[in-house]
């Protein structure tokens, strides 16, 4: 299951801290919606809630950063980017290999850049 495309509805059952934890675990870009209405899309790679002013850290979608955003400035986080961990499983590879027959021409995998 993936969170791709999810727009959380914060409330009693779901806190901002919980959403931040999920965004930290998510392997794709997210959109941080700030209380002032601005938005930052990028990869959330760190959070620290054990300091006097908890914060997240992210690189934006162009790779600039890291930027630090205090929890207090965040209204919500949307799971806007593609989930880069979804669908990349052992089972998917085995299925593909079976489809291609006994001697597949290529396996899957990132091509060298």
């Amino acid at each position, binding site marked *: 299951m993936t969170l791709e495309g999810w727009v959380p509805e914060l409330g009693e059952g779901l806190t901002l801290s919980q959403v931040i934890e999920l965004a*930290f*675990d998510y*392997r*794709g*870009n997210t959109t941080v919606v700030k209380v002032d209405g601005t938005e930052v899309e*990028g*990869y959330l*790679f*760190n*959070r*620290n809630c*054990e300091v006097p002013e908890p914060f997240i*850290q992210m*690189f*934006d*979608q*162009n*790779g600039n950063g*890291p930027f630090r955003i205090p929890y207090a400035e965040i209204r919500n986080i949307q799971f806007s*980017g*593609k989930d*880069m*961990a979804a669908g*990349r*499983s*052992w*089972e998917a*590879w085995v299925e593909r290999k079976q489809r291609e027959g006994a001697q*597949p021409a*290529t*396996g*899957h*995998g*990132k*091509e*060298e*850049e």
Partner: protein
Amino acid sequence: MSVPISQMWAVASYVMRQKLRGRKRYPLVLMLEPLFRCNLACAGCGKIQYPAQILRKQLTVEACLKAVEECGVPIVSIPGGEPLMYPQIGELVDALVARRKYVYLCTNALLLKEKLEQGVFRPSRYLTFSIHMDGLREEHDEAVCRDGVYEKAVEAIQEALRRGFRVTTNTTLFDGVNPLRMREFFDEMMQLGVEGMMLSPGYSYSKAPDQEHFLRRTKTHALFSQLLSNPKRHWIFNQSPLFLQFLMGKHDYECTPWGNPTFNLFGWQRPCYLLQEGYAESFQKLMETTRWENYGRKSGNDQCRDCMVHCGYEPTAVDQTFGSWKGFRGALVATITGRL
């Protein structure tokens, strides 16, 4: 002899200095990840699954060297991603060798032959290519999810050895591995002429896509006992014999998560190479502010319960080897007799 005496002495003297200083928590090997880009997408690897802008980024050589100086380790392992895709890999390795750090460049070897032909590296007792090989051809190509990788890696190993480089293999064993085939694999790697082999059980960490094939502790003991109880004399393992005995169930060790600290684009990874629970901006903050009591088997942490991976337990074994007469004697006996 698998490891040069100079390297053994560098590690032994480093550990003894930490003991003399009364340092309870000290790093041993820096896992330096200059980039996350890779030219493979192995099913067991969750380390490369990031958006494009993250995969395009890389550390500067200066940032890498600063990290090495910060933690002061004698050994630097360079995994990734695929380190041979790092444009400054030659410059980085040269700088580390000049600092007399023992470098293990962990690579799938797809680009190695090309880099050797380009003269990017020079043979040195400080530099070892640690080639990722998860078994014989069929098993390895299946593990890396691409056909033909095994053959290319073997060619690269042969070329590197021909040019006078130190070469080891590193093998992760997943659930379902055939012990007889794996023993055959050991024969094949030693026949190629590698200096030694490194083994580790695969571990299921939450971001790895394949959750069902990782080993559990009891199965790990059984597997490694089958593999190593009757080792052939010509097999050489580039690891502490106490760690291999631990994998066989002969020692009950606790994890040393700070033993192989990890530094990458995001900073100093908490708490260890496998679990990604946050990042510290300096090595000192990593050591001082990580809640180490929350990790390891005794902590009760579910994520640590079945883990026996080398990055957490080999530092424990090394600490035992050079930190106590019993450990030293045990390691010496195993090394001399070749029996585990």
